[in-house]
């Protein structure tokens, strides 16, 4: 251990413009000391933990601290500097890199006082309340809040979980009650529904901070941000609710602007039996009271803005797809993979259609869960898709295919059929239903129809679009050497099926969706193609365009 300490001292001593002003010593498992950075007169307390030079949970194991620098950018509440450095397993090099990063921070944020282009959230020390991390998820609402506005909001418990050895409770902010109107947040209908709990909100316009970026910790520090009207409101909320009807905790959302047309909320938990406000008699001589806050700690819960742009901020499919009304016919292996990919890719309007029932045997190569038992595929998948995205509206139908065939035999009903399908911008036909492919060729459907199917063993995937879908399907498949003899025949099963694993199918479907997405992105028409697979030393998926 001494050897490691001595090495660290030696390596730090070699760094230009850095002088050790307090010797490095071992304190438990942490090596501590102080350095002076010449030409800036800044002194940093340095802490190097046992894991160093490795990272621990994606954070650096060396910390440079100076509490006098709190007002500067990228400084944490405890005065530690956020440095951007490099991974390196070599102790000497790592120390060099980290001190260089500290110097870069000094030049950029201390000397030049640079501001980042992207918004940096204020620093909030989230508290564990009754052994639970509480979260409030919010999204956009069609309402422009004004400074000092307050009222009630509705929320619901969305999920309970565990974070290491603590509980977690996630709440969804569902609507704001303003002037007797209810302004719903832009979640899908499923997330709008259900039982509501009530909290209160206060819009401050500016964040309640000290040292520019650190949220206030005491209620009394909030006073300068709050009008008397809010104190009156808080008083009425406290006294107006009978004791037996009070929830143990009343959440308060505190809102402020973080840019043009964008607001952020922080959440405070108010214990129902410990409201933070009190009144003192006015000195005006009248009988009024002035609201005050106690000098008591604020319990900050966590909030997350998961509006569409943040929820899907890390990547979506092309906007032409995500903005489309989409119909998926057939939600077996291919259709369910297409559906989940579209929803994870940011699509918000899907109708799924299948008459079939999900059996346990379907689970191994589709998106379904064993957990949900034997049930209609459309019910099961719609629940799953809604579980993925709070922004997708899912509708479903058991009988669309049957309905289409029924109407097809009455040409006077073609218009009805066309109307049904023309409600959509894109139709993924994953049904492998040749009758339906034929019908699509006969009626005037304006949507992009993308017919996807595979050969046995998922050796090939065929994607056919309008026109002449049926004809192309009939002509392409026989040319692909589709082996229909080696099928899976479970004992007692009268309906053999193809052989292929989830991996076999998914790799082809994702390749196809990638290609289709790129066609949309590059404004190319969706044209017929098929994928073939080969394995000669390496696995290859080959695309052939018609």
């Amino acid at each position: 251990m001494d050897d490691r300490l001595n090495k660290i001292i030696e390596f730090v001593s070699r760094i230009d413009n850095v002088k050790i002003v307090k010797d490095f010593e071992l304190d438990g498992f942490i090596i501590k000391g102080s350095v002076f950075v010449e030409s800036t007169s800044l002194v940093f307390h340095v802490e190097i933990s046992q894991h160093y030079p490795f990272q621990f949970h994606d954070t650096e194991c060396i910390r440079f601290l100076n509490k006098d620098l709190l007002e500067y950018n990228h400084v944490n509440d405890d005065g530690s500097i956020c440095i951007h450095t490099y991974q390196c397993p070599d102790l000497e090099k790592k120390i060099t890199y980290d001190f260089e990063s500290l110097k870069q921070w000094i030049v950029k944020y201390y000397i030049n006082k640079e501001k980042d282009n992207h918004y940096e959230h204020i620093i909030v020390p989230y508290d564990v309340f009754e052994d639970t991390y509480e979260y409030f998820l919010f999204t956009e609402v069609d309402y422009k809040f004004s400074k000092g506005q307050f009222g009630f909001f509705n929320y619901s418990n969305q999920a309970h979980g565990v974070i290491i050895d603590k509980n977690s409770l996630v709440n969804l902010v569902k609507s704001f009650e303003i002037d007797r109107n209810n302004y719903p947040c832009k979640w899908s209908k499923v997330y709008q529904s259900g039982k509501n709990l009530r909290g209160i909100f206060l819009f401050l316009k500016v964040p309640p901070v000290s040292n520019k970026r650190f949220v206030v910790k005491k209620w009394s520090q909030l006073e300068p941000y709050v009008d008397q009207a809010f104190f009156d409101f808080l008083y009425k909320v406290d006294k107006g609710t009978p004791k037996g009807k009070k929830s143990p905790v009343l959440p308060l959302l505190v809102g402020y602007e973080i840019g043009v047309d964008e607001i952020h909320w922080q959440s405070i938990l108010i214990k129902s039996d410990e409201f933070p406000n009190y009144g003192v008699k006015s000195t005006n001589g009248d009988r009024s009271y002035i609201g005050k806050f106690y000098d008591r700690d604020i319990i900050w819960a966590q909030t997350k803005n998961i509006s569409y742009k943040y929820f899907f901020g890390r990547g979506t499919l092309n906007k032409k797809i995500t903005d489309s009304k989409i119909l998926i016919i057939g939600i077996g292996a291919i259709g369910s993979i297409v559906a989940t990919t579209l929803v994870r890719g940011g699509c918000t309007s899907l109708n799924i259609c299948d008459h079939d029932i999900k059996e346990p045997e379907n689970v191994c190569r589709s998106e379904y869960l064993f957990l949900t038992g034997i049930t209609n595929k459309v019910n099961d998948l719609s629940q799953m898709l809604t579980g993925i995205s709070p922004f997708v509206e899912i509708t479903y139908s058991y009988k669309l295919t049957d309905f289409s065939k029924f109407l097809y035999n009455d040409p006077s009903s073609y218009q009805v059929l066309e109307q049904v399908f023309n409600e959509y911008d894109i139709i993924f036909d994953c049904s492998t239903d040749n009758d339906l492919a034929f019908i699509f060729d006969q009626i005037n459907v304006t949507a992009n129809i993308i017919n996807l199917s595979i050969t046995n063993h998922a050796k090939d995937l065929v994607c056919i679009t309008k026109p002449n879908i049926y004809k192309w399907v009939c002509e392409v498949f026989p040319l692909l050497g589709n082996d229909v003899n080696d099928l899976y025949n479970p004992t007692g099963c009268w309906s053999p099926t193809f052989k292929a694993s989830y991996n076999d199918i998914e790799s082809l479907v994702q390749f196809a969706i990638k290609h289709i997405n790129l066609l949309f992105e590059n404004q190319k028409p969706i044209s017929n193609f098929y994928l073939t697979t080969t394995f000669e030393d390496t696995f290859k998926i080959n695309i052939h365009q018609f």
Partner: protein
Amino acid sequence: MATDKNKHLKCVLESHKIKKEQSLLDKHIAKRTEIKEALEEKYGSNIYSPFNSGSYAKNTAVNKKFDFDFMVPFKRDAFKTLEEMFEDVYKFLNEKYRLEAQVRKQKVSIGLDFSPDKDLDIVKIDVVPGRELNKDQYPTDDNLNLYVYDQFGSFQKGSDRIQSNIQAQINKIKDSADKVSLRQMIRILKVWKIHNSKPIKSFFIELITIKAFENKEPDGDLWVMLKLIMEYIRDNVKTVALPDPGNSNNNVADSMTSSDKDVLSNDMKNMIDQIEGNSDFIKSYFPANSKFPCDDEGKGSGSYGVKKDVASVPPPTRFG
């Protein structure tokens, strides 16, 4: 079994011959004559004699999605503006035919889609109004100005005019198409365009095929020739100039966007690759008209032996 590409293309041409649809052709001629007489009665001395201007006039027609283009040349003083001319002809045709046809304004023409008759035949006639450039000049130079109702290539919606000599356009194609092989190539490519709903103007196909022949006159059987034309389009469509025979200031190549040209070039590449890889694909790209199956292909091979417009092979087993 591999498909004999040359034999199949012969079948494609044979099954798409216009004379196979003589009855439908006669109905078009009769309706065109009726429209001609109606327009002459309505506009009297304000118009010159209307004439056929489409593929039928140019000998490049095929019998699938068959229609007539009908040019109506107006005198200079007939209307103050081209828009007025276009709107007046539309109003007249709409009033006269709205109960028996769908009458709609198109890019430079007024389309009349007549309701199916007792044989379920549909007559389609596009009436193209045009006005001579200067008073009494048309009989000597054949030049006309057209009104651009909707975006037409590089011509903006509402543009005043496209100056064109329709007669020269017809003559250019018709004279070139006197070469049997060139006419065959144009018709085969039109079959591809129609069956695969490709949004390319027939006039573009005609001119680029002529250009390909001018570049190097293909020699050999139908497939060899077709492949050469497709290779020419693949390699040149993005750069080739296609002067309008009716007005050399118009480049017909401009009627397609750069992106459209990329797609067409890719289409040609993919077709060549696929057909060379598997000759059976030629039937998918260039199907015979199943309404008129060829004897040798229709029987025995099982490919075109159906009377209805459906594929004859048993539906494949697909999985999903």
